[in-house]
């Protein structure tokens, strides 16, 4: 069976193609449209998936949308009614926004692909999350927990999944917590309050939390109340996300926590105001962690299972994931590489395959590399046209050369194979650098990523050496496979891994095994032979505000604009000249129009 999964309209939209029960490809729309967090209908992603899978639209057996649009509309309308008359400002916007496109998904998909309407299917939003987490994980039977901002009505679900010996599959979500009581919305509200972009900068709150102390837990208790059955509710008087789209926290919230931070003000951690914001972040982070640990413990007790599959946007919180692993009683925690809404495209397709069409269960390859591949020739051609030095080496020589460059303190843009599906750069579209000195972190923040100094960088380490440098609990390596957990750096190594050690001594480490990423593994080995420490700093290959690069030319344009010293696409290397050629001022238009050709000056 050929099944296309689609997610769209709320966060980063995506498409995924599943053929005979196995994913063939998946890509987020932003990677092709080059608009970060592109939530538009993923036409480019769909076209690429079909072209890559060599499937014509009429050959598709089903197209599955990742949620039930009308049920979502019902929730939006009901919330507007419940908030009457306070919702009068947001009502026209919400209705126009929803009726404009979002509720007509069957017709839109049908007309875009030219497939009959009866081939278009829908899944529950959280069922898609559950399927993405469970069906892609190497486990036969597991508890399932999903948590995000909101789907249709559910914000958090719990249940179990099983692959039976007869090849059938079961995903049984048993209970849910419903909007507006939402861990994702709670965290997003603090994201907005702290002056960061909602649905994008939640990880900044997590990074900032390490600088603060959870001194506001009493205040937090007024916002979040536990219920006798072990769930939680949010106190509605402190929030406005359920009544208006313009602000997610209320005046009462500000009375409790103080004035919100302007997005344009820097966070000065030396000032009382900066410390207050850090303490706010630490407090909401602690509450999120405590709740997740409690919910996971409860689920462990109810199911008696040793594996947990955790999906939804909240599963991107690596600090909370590590605590769930350490404290909930689960022996293994599986978080997919794309736990957010983009991953639902794959989840919806797998769900339909196994549960709507009752296809036999198949193992899903345990890696995140489902996107477009890099074309090294494209890079070589562009670089030569610009007069840049190009080296086309054989593979072992290229890896040795890159290791030399890294050991010499240079920053390398590293592209190979298919790009990652999900928000993390896991070694196919990464910027790599030596992890030893704090100055490297500052240089990356200043010259390339242009981001706040409190945000940490992640290390990548071969699985064979991970325990030596990082304090991984049992099951930690699995969680770190897709960079889904934050773990302590061993104290004796912190000074030598200063660029990747966060202020609290932790790191969001990626553990690489040879099977999943053989070239990155070989590079780490080669770097380890030179420096004695087979650990590299690994950050996503993009600059602020842009999606991670996909094609070689996108990597090349980023390389030209940012302070990256060496660019590698497969075994093709381009190195920036040590001295940039002199060039005249921009008033000399003749030079810029003619002499610049071939000079590589720009």
């Amino acid at each position, binding site marked *: 069976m050929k099944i296309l999964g689609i997610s769209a309209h709320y966060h980063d939209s995506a498409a995924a193609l599943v053929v005979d029960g196995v994913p063939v490809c998946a890509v987020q729309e932003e990677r092709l449209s*080059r608009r970060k967090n592109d939530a538009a209908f993923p036409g480019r992603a769909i076209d690429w998936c079909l072209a890559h899978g060599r499937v014509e639209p009429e050959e598709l057996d089903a197209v599955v949308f990742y949620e*039930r*649009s*009308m*049920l979502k509309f*019902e929730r939006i309308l*009901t919330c507007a*009614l*419940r908030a*009457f008359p306070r919702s*009068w400002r947001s*009502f*026209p*916007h919400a*209705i*126009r926004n929803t009726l404009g496109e979002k509720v007509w998904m*069957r017709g839109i998909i049908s007309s875009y692909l030219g497939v009959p309407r*009866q081939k*278009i*299917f*829908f*899944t*529950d939003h959280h069922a898609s999350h559950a399927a993405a987490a469970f069906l892609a994980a190497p486990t036969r039977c597991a508890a399932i927990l999903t948590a995000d901002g909101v789907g249709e009505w559910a914000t958090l*679900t719990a249940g179990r999944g099983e692959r039976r010996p007869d090849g059938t599959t079961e995903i*049984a*979500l*048993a*209970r849910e*917590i*419903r909007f507006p*009581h939402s861990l994702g919305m709670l965290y997003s509200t603090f994201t907005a309050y702290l002056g960061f972009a909602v649905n994008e900068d939640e990880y900044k709150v997590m990074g900032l939390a390490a600088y603060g102390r959870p001194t506001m837990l009493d205040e937090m208790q007024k916002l979040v109340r536990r*219920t006798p*059955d*072990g*769930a*939680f*509710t949010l106190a509605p008087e402190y929030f406005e996300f359920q009544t208006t789209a313009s602000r997610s926290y209320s005046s009462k919230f500000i009375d409790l926590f103080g004035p919100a931070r*302007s997005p*344009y003000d820097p966070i000065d951690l030396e000032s009382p105001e900066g410390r207050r914001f850090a303490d706010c972040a630490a407090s909401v982070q602690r509450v999120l962690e405590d709740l997740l640990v409690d919910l996971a413990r409860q689920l462990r007790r109810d199911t008696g299972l040793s594996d947990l599959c955790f999906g939804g946007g909240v599963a991107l919180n690596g600090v909370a994931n590590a605590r769930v692993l350490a404290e909930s009683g689960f022996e293994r925690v599986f978080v997919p590489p794309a736990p957010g809404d983009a991953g639902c495209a794959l989840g919806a397709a797998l769900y*339909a395959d196994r*549960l*709507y069409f009752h296809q036999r269960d198949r193992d899903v390859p345990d890696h995140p590399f489902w996107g477009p591949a890099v074309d090294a020739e494209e890079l070589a051609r*562009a670089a030569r*046209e*610009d007069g840049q030095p190009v080296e086309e080496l054989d593979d072992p020589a290229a890896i040795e050369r890159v290791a030399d460059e890294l050991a010499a303190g240079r920053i390398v843009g590293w592209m190979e194979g298919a790009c990652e599906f999900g928000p993390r750069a896991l070694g196919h579209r990464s910027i790599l650098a030596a992890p030893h000195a704090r100055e490297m972190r500052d240089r990356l923040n200043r010259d390339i990523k242009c981001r706040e100094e409190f945000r940490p960088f992640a290390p990548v380490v071969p699985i064979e050496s991970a325990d030596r440098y990082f304090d991984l609990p049992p099951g930690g390596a699995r969680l770190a496979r897709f960079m889904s957990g934050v773990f302590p750096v061993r104290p004796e190594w912190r000074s030598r891994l200063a660029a990747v050690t966060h202020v609290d001594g932790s790191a969001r480490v990626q553990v690489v095994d040879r099977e999943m990423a053989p070239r990155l593994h070989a590079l780490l080995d080669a770097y380890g032979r030179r420096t004695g420490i087979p650990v590299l700093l690994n950050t996503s290959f993009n600059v602020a*505000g842009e999606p991670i690069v996909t*094609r070689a030319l*996108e990597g090349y*344009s980023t390389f*030209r*604009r940012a302070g990256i010293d060496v660019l590698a696409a497969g075994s093709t290397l381009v190195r920036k000249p040590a001295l940039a050629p002199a060039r005249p001022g*921009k008033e000399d*238009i003749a030079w*810029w*129009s003619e002499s*610049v*050709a*071939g000079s590589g*000056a*720009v």
Partner: protein
Amino acid sequence: MPAVTRGAPLDRLMRPVHRWVWRDRDRRLRKLLTFADVETDGGRDIVRAAEVTSDPLLRRLYLEHAIDELRHGDLFRRRGAALSRERRTPRNVLLDGNPLPGGHGLDDLSIDGEPDHRLLAFLHVAEKAAAGRFAIYRELVDDDPETRAIFEQILRDEVFHMNYTYTQLTRVSPRDYRRHVWHARTKRLWNRYLRVAAAIAGLAGSAMLTVMYFVLLPPFAWLAKRAERREPIGWTPIAPGRADSPRSQY
């Protein structure tokens, strides 16, 4: 080669409006922050143009242009942030944000698949208009030397952008370059019309929905609130089979 700009006739006519906008610190702040977003989005679009063009010279020039635009965005953002910090008492504003539905940089131009001559003509017309307007703005912020200095710096870059796009347009399309420029001007006007029309339609739609909200919704609102009070808190069991309706959007 086009002359160094002094502002389009329409902008010169609108000078009193521009003066009114720039005189007020809050409006100035919002204007700067809007410019920051527009320049940054435009810069990203031009990066994309550099990535998709097959012309190596254009690739280099586009990259240079994009770096300028991204820097301008940063300059505007920093200045806006500084003004924001200086502002002591937040004031209510008449209109929050731009009422006209804008695009992602470059007026929603789709870069992929756009031929170079069309993009160059579009960029030339857009840069010329921007340079003219910035020349007027520069004069209107005499009381604010830092903002004025930013406009001066950006204006120099805009003149370069205006000139290189024109020079390159004559290179890639030596026979039809004038027609392309006129086509770009017409398209720009059409896009403006669409933005205004969409804004008017949006306002009319909002007005109708607001009337419906107050006329039709109260009884349903009462029912919804009553139902909300009866909702259980905490865990809600999921009925078995709820997810087994593959074709339902409900």
